[in-house]
């Protein structure tokens, strides 16, 4: 009985690890296999003949460096804007200078914007950006990503600011410290870990975002997810280079997600559930 009690959860955990990781293993393996071993029946599950030729082929076929640069610019740009303006707004909303009703209204609205399905927004975004001459520019895509991540940042930062002791703020007021200085010099340094988490969430979203990018970018600002999807419709499937691109896309966000692991729950639930 006790053996079964100890063994069963362990077996299930092992099964979870295998099921979750096998596709990732397959992706990495396919990217490193020599071309002749990619599409075989039965499939080759392990090989020592590893090569980077798929990566070479990918670089030869697609301007991967440019895509990488575009993705980095867009993800960094939208993250910085969302985090700076979002934490400013969250700080004010966590204080009591504004009427309670106004603060609640703003917060509800912020939450509602997160509920909008992106596809509802993408047609108007296209029209607006076209009128502004911002289709296929980094700025245009950055603005649409900020629209999606700003509400998340505001709600997350609100939770982090609310955790700071009230006396801290009161003492600074007694010292004649203005709202901006209390925000920038006192509260911000204390919520830096929270800020990092909000930033990581915003970055991962922007890095992986496909729908907006596929419609609002073309040649000059195409990001990695769009480049990835351009493999889909091809008659002659390039599985090796495609997997190589997938690996390159995954590495930065996997590292960031692992770094933010402790706070992932807060980010997922808008701060409603804490770990």
């Amino acid at each position, binding site marked *: 009985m006790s053996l079964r009690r100890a063994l069963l959860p362990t077996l299930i955990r092992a099964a979870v690890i295998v099921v979750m990781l096998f*596709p990732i293993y397959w992706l990495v393996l396919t990217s490193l296999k020599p071309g002749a071993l990619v*599409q075989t029946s039965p499939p080759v599950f392990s090989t020592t003949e590893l090569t980077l030729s798929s990566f070479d082929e990918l670089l030869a076929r697609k301007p991967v460096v440019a895509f990488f640069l575009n993705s980095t610019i867009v993800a960094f740009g939208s993250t910085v804007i969302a985090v700076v303006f979002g934490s400013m707004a969250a700080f004010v909303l966590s204080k009591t200078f*504004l009427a309670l009703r106004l603060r609640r209204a703003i917060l509800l609205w912020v939450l509602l914007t997160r509920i909008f*399905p992106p596809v509802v927004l993408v*047609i108007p975004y296209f029209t607006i950006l076209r009128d502004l001459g911002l289709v296929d520019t980094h700025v245009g895509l950055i603005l649409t990503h900020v*629209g999606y991540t700003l509400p998340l940042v505001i709600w997350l930062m609100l939770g982090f600011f609310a955790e700071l002791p009230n006396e801290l703020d009161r003492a600074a007021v007694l010292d004649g410290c203005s709202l901006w200085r209390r925000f920038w010099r006192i509260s911000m340094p204390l919520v830096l870990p929270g800020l990092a988490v909000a930033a990581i969430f915003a970055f991962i979203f922007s890095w*992986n975002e496909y*729908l907006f990018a596929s419609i609002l970018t073309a040649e000059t600002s195409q990001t990695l997810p769009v480049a990835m999807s351009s493999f*889909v419709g091809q008659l002659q499937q390039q599985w090796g280079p495609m997997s190589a691109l997938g690996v390159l896309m995954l590495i930065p966000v996997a590292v960031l997600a692992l770094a933010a692991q402790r706070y992932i729950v807060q980010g997922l639930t808008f*701060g409603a559930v804490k770990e």
Partner: protein
Amino acid sequence: MIGHLRVRRSTRLGRPAAPRDQWPVRRPLTLRRERALSVAMLVPAVALLIGTSVFPIVSSLRSSLFETNPNIPGLEPRFVGIENYTRLFEDPVFLDSLRFTAIFVAIAVTLEIVLGLAVGVLISRRTRMTTLARVALLIPFALAPIAAGILWKTLFSSTWGPINWLLGTIGLPRQNFLGSSSQALPSLLAVEVWQQMPAVAFIIAAGVVSLPTDLFRAAQADGASAWQTFRRITLPLLRPVIFVVLVLRVMDAFKTYDIIVALTNGGPAQSTESITFLIAKEGFRYFHTGYAAAMSWVLLVIIMIVSIPLIRGLERAQRAGGADL
């Protein structure tokens, strides 16, 4: 860090208020100035939100009342009132996509919650193995959905895919997963659950950790089985967390788009076109922007109805968590 500041504050309070090097007092602190500053700090975020949500939403509502047909050059959008909406509910393609979306969301979220609950409880205690399991759960979750879809396309391949190889070794016939209208939905569900179940598991695990331990100790002392403990203690106490996760997942499952583009592109024979997919197709392949806008408003209303309990629930949870609302 906070303690350090507290000490400094108390020493400072003992002294008379005098300008100091660290925090020079430039202007006197007045409520009016504070208010003005707080408004100024809100303005950029509010302006961005108006530009990225209110304005597009209003413009989408407006365009849903117009008929556009770019195939006829020079034709101005024509005001048609609610005709786009009435047409929608007679359009079998739209009704099919509504049905597909409902089925997809219902099954995907049920599977994610059930599996996520089991996995979440199993990884809630910190051991070396659960740490590894958390990493294993996190990586698929971080992968871009479009890349996940393409990766699974290789796994599903009917000629050289590992899944068909596995079926072969246990004596089952090969399946044409993505090309068959009965297998395409389960295939999409597998990818969706693989990517999104970890989110549920992490949230459930966090909920389990925050439960009072004495209840579990008492259950153990009374000789309760693992299942009894789960059924009678863990599950009832987790209800608020499960609720939050349920509505969050429903909201997001409605938005599923990337994996459909990567895996089936709506096929075979339009059998896997979700509303989201159909809106993007109508709007950007056929440029029926008015019609697509009307569709997106129907989707918006559906999601709103589903999300109202979430907003209430999240607000309650935030208040309980001590947020100053």
